[in-house]
């Protein structure tokens, strides 16, 4: 798979409370931007993959969510749903189809319209009627953070540093949901959402869509010179109900460990911090980013708090993480996020990230984490 698939076009809507845009509007905006970026007409694609986690009001249900948004009929389209790893898994399936030779050019779209709903946060539709009643998305990760605190003697101050960093980056990104700096004090004094997470420890509920056009790497050149290739890829799935597993330590996620090892092996990476120039990781909550550092092998388990405290993941650090602002600041429209991360890494590798540009970026990592740490997808993207 290594170097077989090229990304020749990307697009992304402004993320945020897009009350005046419909699901289809956002899908079309993102896809059309990617088509324009690749310099192709929509008809040029041979197949498409749509990533949407939770259709609401009939939008984003099955493959027709994409076909109807683009009024593009007769193409093979597949909808993918894999918790919050939906976007990267849609990309992964498209990449395998292109690498296999089945299709030459494929479109990947991740889209989520969360703000159509009348309620706050994510809906619990489709969950067991009472076995998990009481769980919320922040609550799930808060229980892990609380156990992590207990085991490694870490406190909320470490989490606050992640929020400060990601807001700093998001303030340099015109497509981010939140474009404002926050102070550590603000983060620590914010209203509590789910102990130990305050408001600024949580990613927002966001509308948005992102898209990528991919093709076989050997045919990428005519489309553009600065295409990006897929170097490594891994997906790993563990239990969707870790709370029933008495062997689960609740201090990190093995899915991320396994998926990243697979991706590193394929890409030929032995020392990720030294070899990778930037990483877009799944910071649904500030603690998750700290755990991600460890699970992705940037540092040892229990040392993530030092990794952020030492500034290693800041824009100027040796492993800039979430240069886009991350889910924390850029926003988290579930199915869109993975594709949005690809958008950011491609932008960085092309050297178009302006005020948040990582110098001489050649290799970037994308990490999506879904469910209660159950599904992880890791991609390594690089210049050819």
């Amino acid at each position: 798979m290594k170097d077989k698939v090229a990304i020749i076009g990307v697009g992304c809507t402004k993320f945020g409370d897009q009350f005046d845009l419909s699901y289809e509007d956002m899908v079309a905006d993102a896809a059309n931007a990617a088509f324009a970026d690749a310099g192709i007409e929509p008809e040029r694609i041979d197949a498409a993959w749509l990533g949407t986690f939770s259709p609401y009001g009939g939008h984003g249900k099955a493959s027709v969510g994409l076909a109807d948004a683009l009024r593009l009929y007769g193409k093979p389209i597949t909808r993918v749903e894999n918790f919050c790893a939906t976007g990267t898994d849609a990309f992964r399936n498209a990449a395998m189809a292109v690498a296999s030779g089945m299709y030459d050019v494929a479109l990947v779209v991740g889209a989520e319209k969360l703000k159509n709903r009348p309620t706050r946060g994510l809906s619990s539709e489709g969950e067991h009627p009472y076995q998990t009643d009481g769980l919320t998305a922040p609550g799930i990760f808060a229980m892990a953070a609380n156990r992590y605190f207990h085991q490694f003697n870490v406190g909320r101050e470490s989490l606050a540093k992640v929020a400060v960093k990601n807001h700093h980056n998001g303030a340099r990104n015109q497509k981010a949901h939140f474009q404002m700096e926050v102070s550590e004090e603000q983060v620590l004094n914010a209203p509590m959402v789910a102990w130990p997470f305050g408001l600024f420890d949580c990613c927002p509920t966001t509308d948005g869509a992102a898209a990528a056009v991919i093709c076989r790497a050997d045919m990428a050149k005519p489309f553009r010179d600065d295409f990006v290739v897929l170097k490594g890829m891994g997906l790993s799935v563990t239990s969707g109900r870790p709370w029933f597993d008495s062997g689960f330590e609740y201090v990190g996620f093995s899915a991320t460990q396994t998926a990243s090892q697979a991706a590193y092996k394929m890409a030929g990476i032995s020392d990720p911090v030294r070899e990778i120039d930037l990483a877009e990781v799944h910071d649904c909550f500030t603690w998750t980013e700290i755990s991600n550092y460890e699970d992705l092998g940037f540092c040892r388990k229990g040392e993530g708090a030092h990794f952020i405290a030492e500034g290693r993941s800041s824009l100027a650090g040796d492993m800039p993480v979430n240069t886009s602002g991350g889910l924390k600041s850029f926003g988290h429209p579930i199915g869109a996020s993975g594709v949005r991360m690809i958008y950011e890494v491609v932008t960085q590798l092309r050297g178009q990230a302006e005020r948040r540009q990582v110098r001489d970026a050649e290799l970037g990592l994308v990490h999506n984490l879904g469910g209660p740490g159950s599904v992880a997808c890791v991609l390594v993207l690089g210049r050819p």
Partner: protein
Amino acid sequence: MIGISGAAIYVPRYRIAREVISAAWGKAPVPGSKAICHFDEDTLTMGYAAASRLTRTGAEPGRLVFASTSAPYWQRSSASQIAAACDLRASTGTMDFGGSLRCGTSALIAAIEAVQAGQVNHVLVTVAERRDAVPESTEELMFGDAAAAIAMSREGVLAEVVATHSRSDDFLDEWRRDRDSQVQGYYSKYSLTRGFEANVGPVVKELLEKAGVPPSEIALAAIASPDGRSHLTCAKALGIALHRVVDTCVAQVGVTGAAMPLMGLALALEAAKPGDLILCAGYGDGADALLFRSISPGPGLLRDSKTIDAGTYPLFRKSRHYLLEGSGGAEISNVLWKREASQNVRLHGTRCPVCSRVQFPITRICSACRNTEGLEEVRLGRTGRIFTFTKDFLYDAPVQPAIMTVVDLDGGGRFLCQMTDVDEREVRIGMPVELVLRRMREGAANHHYYWKCRPVEGTA
């Protein structure tokens, strides 16, 4: 010999000071407090709580009777669900008593008669009341919520049955129509003298005559009371010394309706010396009276000394109908309810014979070693320790934060549940907890019941 083989009481942890209620209506302070259901409790969950204290250790009953004037369903057996939650076998006879405020003592008489008739050897009667009064009424100050359970058996008898007696009187005293959510009544002197005293007096008198026992020989008298006072007037008139009358905790717990005489009986059993005669009397649309003789020292009752201040009057009223007025719960199909009953209601899990891991939910493949041979369905422990938790302000609950816990169960298995009956400041990793049956969010016109945890007695 036939008699009482076990007794238990259950009082909710939440208390509201009566002066908080009187102050809310701008009235003079009233002393004492009353026990109130937490927002997630009703008579089914309290009836389970009292019954489970006896089924955990005692012999398995052949019949389980639930009695209440405030059952959560007009049509659907609470007894059957309590029996399942207690993990009793399917051949258990389950019956629901209601209608009258004396349904608890009537259920007790029926239990005695069933054992006497040889129909069944061991009957467990659990009675629970969740009493809703008209706001601003005296009853709003007085009514309390509680449950009690009494086991009637041929074996292990602590107090034998001496006699029972009943009388019927279609007297208009206190009632609740099918469409009423609150108890109605006239509460006049006429009600007390021509209703309460006119029935309890004669029923006790006739019972004692039947048994050939003079009132002066009664050692302990557990008598229902509409107000915490009138039963004393009644006892005095009968010739029973006031110090013989059991304190049914009206001052701290309240007037607990049908549960009251059984609570009193449980307290009397605990206090009785061998040979003591114990009287129990229930009132409502007539009256019931039962006489027991203590055989051996009574059981020590499990006393929950933990109480939690329910706070303000608005919070009390909000909690009272929170689950009824809200919804948001998922629909539970009868297919799923039935198929998963052994795990979700009976709290069974799976034990792997190869790696010994006890796990929940029930599985055909061991989650630790993936073995598929010889997996065994086992009862899970109903106590454990908190492995981790969060205090969630996003989840919709009447009092925030909602506390979500991951619990390592004693005997193995890990369980996810909400925590209840706790001051959020006390929650800690490693805290010992017990699983309790509670009401969950309503959905699809059904009450939903599942397990939560709460601190065990003597911790926190």
